[in-house]
């Protein structure tokens, strides 16, 4: 069994190695005809971009993606610099007409994004020519390897039950060097994905056939991400199924997040795209879906007829009605650990790291400040955007619409949710984003704390203060602090993962939806102690 596991690990690492290595392969260049097509399709007005791009991309040299990207970005920079210089010149001459004319020649967009578009067309080589083979060598090997690594747990873990043996002895799960390596890999992955997509263009070739099959178009970096996301969740869900095979709550919950990721986040949007509709993730509620009210999205929905209108209405109803009503009945868990994509990754890929969430009081304070700030930030951004959208103004309350959207997308959308949120799993735990950053979680949390039937019931005086619950709470809630006092746990941040209840060796915790009355029960005296004393102390409160 152990040999199978080792073999699995080796296969997985080979798959991952090849996957990573593909980034360094391939030659990138365009023919003159291809370049002309591209420039024409973009409708650039710049008179020199074509010449600059020709110098950069129409070549016999063997350029790898990094060289190619650098040349392309320089070409755009050269073009823009040229017009910037003209602008400065006319500005000095106070020739306002001429100055004004120059702006149309400038090309906007992030350099790596511009470069990505050309690179996608410019690549050639083994990877692009053999996507099927490469799929098997990367995804295929890694999936097979991971499964071989995971499946023997059925036997190796012993009989069904909580088996956390060795978690704090292993480098990978105890913040050792393996954990740091994983962190570096994940962070690099997100940095490339969000900020240097052209560098990962080779990965998109591997998935072109699948993308074409699903939506008729070639794979983008976001398709790669979505596909990878599903694959990782499926494989790691197998691990969850084995680990919690004695716990039906965990099994059903895992199946639920998996279903919503694959069907709602991945397949439906792809199919909608292939039908020329806007691809929409019907479960992704604003303000987690922070660009729902951005101009481009509203425009695209307005142009999409009935479907667009439906999505618009659905999006609003989801956030204003469905989400809070469901939280009232079931707690925020219905979203955070049953439906949400971020939650889904955290509960599968992130499960081995759940113990790293910080349980200190200071972390709780930081959490409340941060998450509510992000909520306010997202609401202000949306207000500004909507105001500007309908009024045609550029700014509201002195805040520029474009600026605040860019800032939010960069700081919260990319860095917080992605790079930090997932990249830091191995060191800071699997719910960094959900706990400190997610504006939707902040909103759900407020409802859960003040108007909900959900609570974790503490079973009288049975707690032995062992601390398993607190250690494994991914949201950094000090569950024991409540349980040992015989007090129910009602906390805004609890995502109802149910793991505290699962790991408790004394059967102290139960996630329940019950009457609001008596949900929050501060007790200082244990159930079973002198009845008069209980009354006395509880009256003194």
């Amino acid at each position, binding site marked *: 069994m152990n040999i199978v596991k080792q073999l699995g690990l080796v296969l997985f690492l080979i798959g991952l190695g090849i996957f990573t290595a593909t980034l360094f392969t391939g030659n990138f260049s365009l023919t003159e005809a291809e370049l002309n097509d591209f420039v024409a399709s973009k409708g650039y007005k710049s008179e020199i971009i074509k010449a600059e791009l020709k110098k950069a991309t129409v070549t016999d040299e063997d350029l790898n993606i990094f060289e190619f990207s650098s040349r392309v970005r320089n070409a755009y920079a050269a073009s823009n610099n040229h017009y910037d210089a003209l602008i400065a010149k006319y500005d000095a001459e106070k020739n306002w007409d001429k100055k004004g004319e120059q702006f149309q020649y400038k090309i906007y967009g992030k350099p790596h994004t511009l470069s990505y578009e050309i690179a996608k067309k410019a690549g050639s080589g083994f990877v692009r020519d053999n996507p099927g083979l490469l799929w098997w060598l990367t995804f295929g090997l890694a999936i097979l390897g991971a499964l071989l690594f995971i499946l023997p747990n059925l036997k190796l873990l012993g009989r069904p039950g909580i088996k956390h*043996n060795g978690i704090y002895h292993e480098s990978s799960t105890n913040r050792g060097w393996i954990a740091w390596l994983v962190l570096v890999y994940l962070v690099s992955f997100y940095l490339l994905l969000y900020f240097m997509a052209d560098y990962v263009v080779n990965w998109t070739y591997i998935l072109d056939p699948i993308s074409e099959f699903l939506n008729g178009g070639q794979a983008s970096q976001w398709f790669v991400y979505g596909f990878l996301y599903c694959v990782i969740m499926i494989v790691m869900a197998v691990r969850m199924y084995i680990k919690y095979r004695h716990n039906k709550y965990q099994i059903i919950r895992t199946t639920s997040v998996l279903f919503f990721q694959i069907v709602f986040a991945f397949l439906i949007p792809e199919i909608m795209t292939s039908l020329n509709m806007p691809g929409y993730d019907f479960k992704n509620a604003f303000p987690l879906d922070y660009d729902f009210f951005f101009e481009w999205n509203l425009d695209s929905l307005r142009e999409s007829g009935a479907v667009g209108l439906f999505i618009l209405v659905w999006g609003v109803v989801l956030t204003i009605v469905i989400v809070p009503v469901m939280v009232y009945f079931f707690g925020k868990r219905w979203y955070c650990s049953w439906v949400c994509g971020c939650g889904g990754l955290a509960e599968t890929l992130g499960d081995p790291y759940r113990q790293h969430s910080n349980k200190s009081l200071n972390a709780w304070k930081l959490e409340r400040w941060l998450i509510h700030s992000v909520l306010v930030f997202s609401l202000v951004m949306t207000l500004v955007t909507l105001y500007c959208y309908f009024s045609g103004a550029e700014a509201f309350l002195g805040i520029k619409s474009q600026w605040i959207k860019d800032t939010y997308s960069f700081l919260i959308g990319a860095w917080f949710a992605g790079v930090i949120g997932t990249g830091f799993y191995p060191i800071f735990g699997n719910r960094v984003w959900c706990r400190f950053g997610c504006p939707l979680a902040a909103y759900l949390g407020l409802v859960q704390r003040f108007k909900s039937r959900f609570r974790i019931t503490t*079973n009288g005086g*049975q707690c032995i203060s*062992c601390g398993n619950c607190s250690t494994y709470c991914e949201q950094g809630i000090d569950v024991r602090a409540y349980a040992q006092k015989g007090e129910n746990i009602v906390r805004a941040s609890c995502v109802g993962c149910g793991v505290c209840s699962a790991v408790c060796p004394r059967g102290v915790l139960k996630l329940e939806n019950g*009457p609001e009355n008596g949900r929050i029960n501060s007790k*200082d005296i*244990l*159930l079973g*102690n002198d009845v008069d004393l209980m009354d006395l102390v509880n009256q003194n409160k």
Partner: protein
Amino acid sequence: MEEHIVIIGNGVSGVTAARHIRKLSDKKITIVSAETDYFFSRTALMYVYMGHMKFEHTQPYENWFWKKNRIALKKGFVNQVDTAAKTLHFAEGDTLQYDKLIIATGSKPNKFGWPGQDLDGVMGMYHKQDLESLEKYAPNKEVCKRAVIVGGGLIGIELAEMLHSRHIPVTFLVREESFWNGVLPAGESAMINREIIANGIDLRLASNLKEITADANGQVKSIIIQETGEEIACNVVGLTAGVSPNIDFIKDSDIETGRGVKVNRYLETNVPDVYAIGDCAEQYKGIDQRRPIEAVWYTGRMMGETLAQTICGNRLQYKPGHWFNSAKFMDIEYQTYGWVWAQTKDNEARFYWEHTDGNKCITLNYDKTTREFIGINTFGIRMRHEFFDKILTEKQSVDYVVEHLADANFDPEFYKLHEPAIVAKFNTENNTNIKLKNKSWKRIFA
């Protein structure tokens, strides 16, 4: 000057007393311990060795907590109490004055004078130092080729699980014919025997330790079984044959002791201003049907809660309510509410249900004639403490309990419910026609 309350022992009982005294008053509080700087949960020692937690996770309060609540912590071993001068003498040579003294020194593992019981590699499993010693002598299966555990109680089975988690072969010597059968009825005890064996542990029932032999370096080499004379080679011996109050240091003071520090219902000793709580306290007479010495977590807590009132001027009797407890045997969780004795008493009758998987069962104990419910043992099914506490106070019948089992169930959501099967079996055996009621929040919270 506020009164100075000194507490010897930073376990759950001493710490609970300190916390509640602080809530009720501004008295000066000092907690003394020789074991660790900060309070930790002894019950979680096993999880540290098993790698489920780090030691810091066993500490229920962050380190700043003590200073913020003005509870002074002193590390040191008290080796003499001078009650006339109200002074503690420490092994380190210094002294400490008190106005009121709370003795909360807990237990220590029993040793019955076995030859070789003090060799290197022989240890109990009670203090943090025992954990460190286990880590030293049994870090893995290469260093420790086999471990022998002597004494089949709750700590013994935990130690077996600990060693098993590091794949160290374990031989488990149990004096009784069946595991913990002084407490558990036969069916349940048999289930735990099966669980132990299923985990690959070499369970030796009805086996006593004769002696522990040493190698040339004074380290454990083997043990010899009394009954068979069999010699079992091993590197570690765990002594888990029960615990007794850790009170040697007051044996020659004028505080009255028996097995533990003798206290009345107010947790007062014979000497004014000296109290004892937790594992080390011994009631003159067991309360209700409890034992005079209760070495469990929650009673230590309750005694601390109660004594804090007395110390702060509201003299209260220690009145633990209905008995309850819980444990976990490898993968099988156990809870008990009320009394279920190993042997049925004359006025009692039993109902026993076991799941076909052999890992779940419940036992209901009730009065033969009045049918009053007396207690329940439940294995592999979690039950609601509040439910049974109320049932016992209201003196409900066993039939009522069976009818309302759904209210009692505390398993996580979506778990398969076994109540219908239980009720069906109960009806057949008792010629009753009880219909299981649906779970009702109203009843649960009434």
